[in-house]
């Protein structure tokens, strides 16, 4: 429990709040893992992005980093509004509601994810990386988010869930960057976000191509290329 013991005594209000938001991000990741309606999954992603934006504001207030307000606003506009809307439009066109069954049952998926998330949480904890902006537990949580996002991409067999898995992986990375790299110049942060937008457009184009070609969102038959 060295992670939690790193901050001696009771955590400050700021630390407690930051940790709580980071935890919400992880819980929403689990929510995405078990959501069977694609629409619900996209909404959970929007909620997760919102939580990350809120955390950016919290850090901006708590540590007087005014650039983070801009970042929070941009990430709110892009990740909470634009990206989910794009994906939802695709879903409407594709006329698909329910994600195909994953490679595993929901219960096993969640169990595996808990193990993986715990591994990520404690593995980063023992690395002893201290940040003077956010409590270390938030960093451990962000790595757990990234790992669970990988599980999501691995077990799901439809293009929307896999894409959402990747987008939420990026949310995990944003969380980590808030914890340990909040001083990064704004221009780089904006470039990262812009890059994400380009990636989203490309994901969208490819999802659409796939859907037109196979009349479904499933990746089940994407197994012809081998060897």
């Amino acid at each position, binding site marked *: 429990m060295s992670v939690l013991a790193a901050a001696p005594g009771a955590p400050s209000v700021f630390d407690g709040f930051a940790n709580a938001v980071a935890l919400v991000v992880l819980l929403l990741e689990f929510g995405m893992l078990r959501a069977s309606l694609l629409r619900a999954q996209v909404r959970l992603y929007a909620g997760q992005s919102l939580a990350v934006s809120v955390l950016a504001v919290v850090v901006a207030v708590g540590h007087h980093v005014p650039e983070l307000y801009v970042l929070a606003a941009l990430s709110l506009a892009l990740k909470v509004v634009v990206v989910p809307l794009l994906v939802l439009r695709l879903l409407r066109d594709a006329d698909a509601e329910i994600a195909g069954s994953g490679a595993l049952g929901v219960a096993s998926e969640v169990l595996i994810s808990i193990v993986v998330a715990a591994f990520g949480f404690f593995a980063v904890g023992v*690395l*002893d*990386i201290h*940040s003077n902006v956010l409590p270390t537990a938030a960093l451990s949580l962000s*790595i757990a988010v*990234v790992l669970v996002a*990988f599980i999501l*991409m691995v077990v799901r067999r439809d*293009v929307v869930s*896999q*894409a959402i898995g*990747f987008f939420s*992986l*990026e949310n995990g*990375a944003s969380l*980590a*960057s808030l914890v*340990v*790299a*909040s*001083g*990064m*110049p704004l*221009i*780089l942060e904006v*470039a*990262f976000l812009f*890059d994400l937008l*380009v*990636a989203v457009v*490309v*994901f969208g*184009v*490819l999802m659409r*191509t*796939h859907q037109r*070609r*196979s009349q479904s969102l499933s*990746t089940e038959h*994407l197994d*012809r*290329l081998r*060897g």
Partner: protein
Amino acid sequence: MTIILVLLVVVPLLTTILCAVASYRVSAAATVVTGIAAFVGAIVLVPTVSAHTLTAIRYLRADALSVVFLLATCFLYAVTAVYAVGYLQTARDVSDGEEERRAYFAQHSRRFFVGFNAFAWSMMCAPLVNGMALLWIAVEITTVISALLVALDNTEGATEAAWKYVLIASSGLGIGLLATIFMYFAGAQVLGQSYDLAFDPLLAAAARLPDTPVRLAFVLAVVGYGTKVGLFPVHTWLPDAHAEAPTPVSALLSGSLLAVSFYAILRYYQIATDALGPRFPQTVLLVFGVLSLLLAALYLLEQQDIKRMLAYSSVEHMGILAIAVSFGSPMALTGAMLHVLAHAAAKGNAFMGAGVLVRKFGTKELDRMADGVRLLPWSGPLLVATVMSLCAMPPFGLFRSEFQIVAGGFSERRNAGTAILVVLVTVAFLGLSLATTRILFRVRPLSSDGRLELPTLTVGEPSWWMVIPMVAGILILLLLGLMPPDQLLVLLSHAADTLRGRPA
């Protein structure tokens, strides 16, 4: 000189925009001219960066290491641009006549030229930007553009390959982003909370960086960017994408994109050796290199598809590069730098030759091709020479580079690593040369049922535009193998020096 640096980053972007609006002929001409101009520009930079590091408008930077990778990219940009003209021309001849198909061709070729130039542009930016964060952004842009190019042919295979590629490579780069963040954290301990991850301050501070975050950043970078290099076990997208992309794009993917991603790893290596000493980063690279080489050598023995075979050969050569860097001696590092250039030329040529064969026989399956040397009087022999050079036969450039790598390995007493390298390269040689000999010299195709006949094909090349770039590639390989220019050797040894860590 800084103006050339800026032009190299700006002009291909302008060409991209031009291609979005211009007609087929204008786009083709602009692409070829830009490609050749970019190669000339990269050559002009060589003497300057051998003397000192060049920076421009704060966010651009070129040193010997980056120019080596820039040369490889620009050379392939030039030759594949010429090749693409022939590649599209043969497609246009087929679609001549009907109005509908002509409209389809116009749209297809426009998308191709826009994507092609944008892809080359992003790969030229990656080695020229100043800083870990910008480097990540450039590499991510190469991913998304090339994913669209892989999907361009709009076949079932292309769609599948593009989806796998964009998903796997983007996830890999997600790990690369974590590496960037941890590197930022490490740097922040010395340089203060707000800085922009530029190379020079980071390198100057490298010795004082805290151990654990640098270690973490390096391993994450090897796995993350390694996804795009095609290192085992995150190489799985590579054969699919290389096989399904249009041939000029396959050549760029293999010769240039993999190398540019390796460049990103080398930047992390540079900082990690300064911060941690050479032992840890070298061990990591050695493990990934040997595993990739092993996998590729075994897959090469039993391959049915000509483009997949060449893709696995790329995995093999990236493994060789990783092992070469892990040896760490000046000779092996210089060899590795030469290897980047020679591999770009050879693999570009091999894909272009394979593309001609695919056009001629109308299939990618090795079993259905035969008698290539007679049917293709130019590309056939050129492909033989190219494959020999890929197998590191003298007198070509790869012979010189691999010889230097092996000699460098023995000189550092890395006997086990070097011996494994030699054995696995020999296995790969066997696979590659057997398959090529079959399709080029056997008179009749060997199908699994043994009855398959060649369709009646006439002797002749599909297009001269597809032959000229191969001649250029072979000439470059001969030049690199027989008498590399002095300026180039100076550049290579300077690039190798930047990877050796600070002088003890």
